[in-house]
């Protein structure tokens, strides 16, 4: 048995990078997709509303693990052999997009209807209403649930280990397989997840305070 030592710690610390990268990809891709889905959900086109609702329902009803399998093994069967990072990024983007789409739809709809009417009466067109009146208020409402969900996403990136992507959790498993010191290893891994997620919560609270002051 190999002793749990500095080399292992460094190996695990380096894997933090991949958890962060995957999280960032998932947020960025998911945010773009989520915004499009949210706007489609509240659009005036029945087709767009139906399509986005169907997408959200379907993805929310599918375990992330299955999405990861589909993106990695499924697509490779079809001839698209994606690198684990790409496959995991894709699956997480689809997943995060569906959830953010639903969260943000709620936030957009939480802006009172009278704000639409008042801005309409001033002659703003629909784009201007979204850009200057509705979205700025929706963002304020959306901050806490969005950050809460981001924390979930960081933790959910651990599932990418099943397709062989060496992020924090997978690195912990690898080290544990050679050292058999699960307690030490996984406490370190847990502490590192906390170190990523905690600043997110702090930043969220700071942001909320700032948004509350600026109004």
């Amino acid at each position, binding site marked *: 048995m190999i002793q749990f030592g500095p080399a292992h710690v460094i190996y695990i610390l380096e894997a933090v990078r991949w958890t962060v990268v995957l999280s960032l990809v998932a947020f960025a891709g998911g945010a773009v997709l989520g915004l499009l889905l949210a706007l489609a959900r509240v659009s005036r086109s029945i087709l767009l509303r139906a399509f986005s609702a169907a997408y959200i329902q379907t993805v929310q009803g599918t375990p992330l693990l299955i999405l990861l399998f589909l993106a990695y093994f499924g697509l490779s069967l079809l001839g698209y052999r994606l690198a684990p990072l790409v496959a995991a990024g894709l699956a997480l983007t689809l997943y995060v997009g569906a959830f953010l789409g639903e969260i943000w739809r709620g936030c957009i709809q939480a802006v009172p209807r*009278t704000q639409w*009417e*008042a*801005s309409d*009466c*001033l*002659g*703003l067109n629909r784009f*201007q209403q979204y850009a200057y009146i509705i979205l700025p*208020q929706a963002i304020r409402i959306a901050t806490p649930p969005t950050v809460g969900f981001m924390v979930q996403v960081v933790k959910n990136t651990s599932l990418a280990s099943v397709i062989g992507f060496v992020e924090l959790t997978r690195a912990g498993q690898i080290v544990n397989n050679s050292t058999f010191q699960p307690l030490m290893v996984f406490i370190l891994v847990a502490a590192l997840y906390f170190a990523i997620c905690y600043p997110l919560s702090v930043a969220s609270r700071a942001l909320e305070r700032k948004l509350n002051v600026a109004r």
Partner: protein
Amino acid sequence: MAFDANGAVLAEPQGDAVVKVRDVVKFFGQLKVLDGVSLDVKAGDMVAIIGRSGSGKSTLLRCMNGLEDIQEGKIVICGHEVGYGQSNRADLRRDVGMVFQSYNLFPHLTVQRNITLALTLVKKKSKAEAQRLAEQVLDQVGLADKMLSYPEQLSGGQQQRVAIARSLALSPQVMLFDEVTSALDPELTVEVLRVMEDLAKGGMTMILVTHEMAFAQRVANQVVFMHKGKVWEAGPTRELFSSPKTSEFAQFIGTGL
């Protein structure tokens, strides 16, 4: 002002009416909320629409501004036919301002930005020009010192005056007011009514739904009494109040509201 109570027309429609409402019928689902409403408003008129709660006053005002669709009839304001969700709304918006019971200021923007937003985005005014107009209208409603405040830092009466200023800044031909003092304490009501009275004296064409009977009697030159979705009785204020023609109106003013 044309008047249409149970089919009886008491006055000829005016040729120079800036607002023409003709035989408007409006349903909410099965509920007939406006039942053949017609009225005309001349430039410079101040028309008070009164009546019991649920008689269709707000709905009429909202239809006039295209916030609700109508099932029958026609509404023309300043030469623009009003259509719900229509794309030529910009023309209507340029000429008609509206103030709501709940102020509806934009909470995330300063008083100044509340006023300049449409000036710069819609009217394409320069920043300096928009700023100058904002100062002017805020001064007009007595709130020149609140330029940089946020709505929540103001009292209800102040917020409502900002809402009036915001609408006024776009220099509309006609202004619609829907129970703009109903959410206010009596002291705050006074300051808002004073602003509206000044506007009326300045010749603004105004249509207001109100429960302030004393104010309506004193300032409005035309009164419309609505009942069950119809214009039940309408005419010059003094005439109407001195000799009610229908028992419903007599009862309405008799109860002192």
